[in-house]
């Protein structure tokens, strides 16, 4: 037995003997991990964190098992020293799902539990702030429940009969009494409706200081930044209480781009979800494809051929480069260098988009990966283009950006020591990607649990130690350099050969079971949790979105800072709203 299997065996013995009767192994076919009784959950989690070293709770989500009458909450915990996940679940009855909150143990569960409450109606007892997060207070029902139907509901699963094979197309509006995408519960009277109290709840929940500063009389005010605000990179809103110019408390408000990926994804066929993943983090579509393909391939048990693996890595790293340079450009915008640095960044990004367009047919929405390979091979001339980029142009241009920005007085003064996140906080809040690594935690999924063929390449996990805004800028520069290194090696090693294993298929029969596929996306750990019942559609399709979870630490980072700095702190996290709100 290898060292790792021995270790896992030991862990299993510890857990099962420590919690007899209340913890058991998940014996369903295709499932893994443990099933924990709700009342033992808190102790179980504490043991995991304090004794077994699972200090990082990556993903929390719920699954509605309607036929069994159960709600299940699924947790994925990792060690920040690397290694596979420990999966544990809690099953509660569907009509009264109450689960103890894990926020006291893993603060990173905060937003994810709120999301499960919002979309599935699972109550987390002891959660400090259990409000809706993606929808608004007063929305009717919990939409991800399997028996909840949207106004345009047509059938449980795609392909819909009306489109295939019958091929009659109609507009969904025509069948709705209002001609719009709306529906109202029976007996509802709009005149009796008191406008939703979301804002009031937010304002109430904000922290205040009792006494403002001694010598200078100041007044506390609440300021809303967003949802339409140039600094928020889309439709994001920050509600801050200010004492003078100093931030007392901050609450992020999101959901303004909640496009229901998960509900739509559970009606779609497996392959239909691929183009939807492009639109999650629309700045890094290839990485999203990658994560979803990995999750489903795990269930299908297929492995892409060698050449496809290399193409995937090249595309994923190109994505990381263009995402990071765009992020740096936008971050400089937030700092006040209005648009000039981002023009330089976008120039390079355009060249990478040209590559995407040449291989996939679209600049942004690539839809390029398939289960067991990629859609098209890289043509010879495009290969040469990538070659030029990786060996000539990009290294030069990155050095140039570096020269212009890194030692700029303004970048340093505004960045250093601002928005600090300590390593302990970063882990506790489940921060991922550059945010985690800039705080001195060298955790990179490509190293910690190598997927695809990342174990073959020679690269360093970039890490910085101050955890401030400036380090989060530097780390992106470092990572771009490492990505260039990986691409250079991949270009030298890539073999000839097929790019798909087996025949391309439209309809996949995915064996029943669950699977969690994760990649190190440009924003951090991007995970896809899928559950199959053996049918043509996923039963559950959940995205662990790094942009969303990284925001958990935002309030912590901004407290005590100046209001102008909240803007660059947000910029340094690098969120994309498509992924935050999904």
């Amino acid at each position, binding site marked *: 037995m290898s060292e790792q299997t021995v270790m896992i065996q030991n862990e299993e013995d510890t857990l099962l003997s420590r919690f007899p009767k209340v913890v058991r192994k998940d014996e369903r076919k295709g499932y893994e991990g443990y099933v924990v009784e709700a009342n033992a959950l808190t102790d179980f989690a504490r043991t995991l964190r304090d004794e077994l070293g699972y200090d990082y709770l990556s993903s929390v989500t719920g699954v509605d098992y309607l036929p069994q009458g159960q709600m299940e909450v699924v947790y994925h915990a990792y060690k920040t020293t690397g290694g596979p996940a420990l999966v544990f679940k809690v099953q509660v009855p569907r009509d009264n799902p109450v689960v103890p909150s894990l926020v006291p143990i893993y603060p990173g569960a905060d937003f994810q539990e709120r999301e499960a409450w919002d979309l599935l109606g699972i109550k987390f007892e002891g959660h400090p702030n259990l409000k809706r997060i*993606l929808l608004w207070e007063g929305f009717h029902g919990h939409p991800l429940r399997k028996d909840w139907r949207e106004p345009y509901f047509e059938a449980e699963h795609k392909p819909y009969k009306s489109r295939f094979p019958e091929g009659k197309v109609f507009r969904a509006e025509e069948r709705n009494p209002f001609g719009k*995408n709306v529906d109202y*519960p029976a*007996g*509802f009277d709009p005149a009796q409706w008191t406008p939703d109290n979301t804002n009031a709840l937010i304002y109430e929940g904000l922290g205040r200081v009792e006494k403002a500063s001694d010598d200078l009389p100041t007044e506390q005010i609440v300021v809303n930044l967003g949802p339409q*605000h140039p600094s928020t990179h889309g439709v994001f809103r920050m509600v801050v209480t200010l004492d003078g110019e100093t931030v007392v408390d901050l609450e992020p408000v999101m*959901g303004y781009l909640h*496009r229901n990926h998960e509900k739509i994804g559970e009606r779609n066929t497996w392959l239909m979800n691929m183009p939807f993943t492009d*639109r999650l983090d*629309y700045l890094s579509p290839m990485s999203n494809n990658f994560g979803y393909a990995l999750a489903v391939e795990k269930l299908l048990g297929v492995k892409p051929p060698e050449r496809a693996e290399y193409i995937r890595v090249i595309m994923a790293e190109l994505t990381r480069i263009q995402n990071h340079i765009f992020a740096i450009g936008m971050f400089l915008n937030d700092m006040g260098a209005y648009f000039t640095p981002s023009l330089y960044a976008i120039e390079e990004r355009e060249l990478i988009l040209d590559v995407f367009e040449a291989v996939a047919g679209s600049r942004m929405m690539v839809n390029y990966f398939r289960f067991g390979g990629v859609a098209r091979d890289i043509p010879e001339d495009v290969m040469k283009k990538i070659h030029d980029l990786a060996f000539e142009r990009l290294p030069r241009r990155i050095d140039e950006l570096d020269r212009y920005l890194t030692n700029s007085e303004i970048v340093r003064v505004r960045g250093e020591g601002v928005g600090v996140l300590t390593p302990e906080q970063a882990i506790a809040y489940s921060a991922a990607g550059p945010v985690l690594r800039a705080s001195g935690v060298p955790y990179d999924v490509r190293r910690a649990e190598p997927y695809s063929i990342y174990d073959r390449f020679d690269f360093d996990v970039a890490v910085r130690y101050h955890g401030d805004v400036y380090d989060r800028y530097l780390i992106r520069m470092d990572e771009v350099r490492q990505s260039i290194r990986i691409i250079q090696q991949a270009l030298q090693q890539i073999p000839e050969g097929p790019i798909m294993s087996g025949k391309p298929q439209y309809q996949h029969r995915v064996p029943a079971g669950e699977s969690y596929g994760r990649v190190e996306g440009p924003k951090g750990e991007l995970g896809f949790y899928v559950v199959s019942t053996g049918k043509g559609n996923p039963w559950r399709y959940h995205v662990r979105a790094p942009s969303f979870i990284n925001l958990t630490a935002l309030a912590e980072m901004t407290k005590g800072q100046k209001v102008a700095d909240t803007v660059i702190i947000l910029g340094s996290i690098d969120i994309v709203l498509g992924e935050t709100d999904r």
Partner: protein
Amino acid sequence: MSTKPKDEGLNSPQYPIPEDLQGVVTITTLDRIYNWGRRNSLWPMMFGLACCAIEMICTAAARFDFARFGMEVMRASPRQADVMIVAGTVTKKMLPQVVRLYNQMAEPKYVVAMGACASGGGPFKEGYNVVSGIDQYLPVDVYIPGCPPTPQALIYGLMKLQEKVDRQTIKEVYGRRAEMIPIPVLGPDVMDPREYDRIREYTRQKAEQEAAAAAEPEAAQA
């Protein structure tokens, strides 16, 4: 003599200008000079909703550069903007803000629906939080297809908007008062204040149907 075609921009003399004054004097109509100024300084609102906004940024950047059309001045405040480029999916949660922003823009104002989502719901149309096209709430001047439309397509759409501006007259545009669009309210679902009566009627009927459906199995048993 000027050989320019009749309808090219500002200079369309119809009257002969003495040779020594050409280049110094222009004879035009009020409509022409007014529209010429407006069409070449359409300021978009700096406001992006989703993926399409990224292509809008690319259009503004060096390679495509819509500054060539006098549009580089992106304004973050609706009060200073002429065009609202609705770049992305409009969700129900965002809808009140979008309508409010439109109301705050000064006349003459234009709306461009960029991409499939803004035009009709796009790939996410069936989603429970997605509005099937902004034209259900705001008057749209130009629709640009694509998901996302390429920068070229966006520029083409904006040129179409310029053509539309050219066709207007100062009489219909100048001093026009903006019509306020009632702000949708977030209830159990998004509600248009103008439709309250219909909603009430609908929910009453629905309740009756449900009551009838509930009574039926009992009747069958008895």
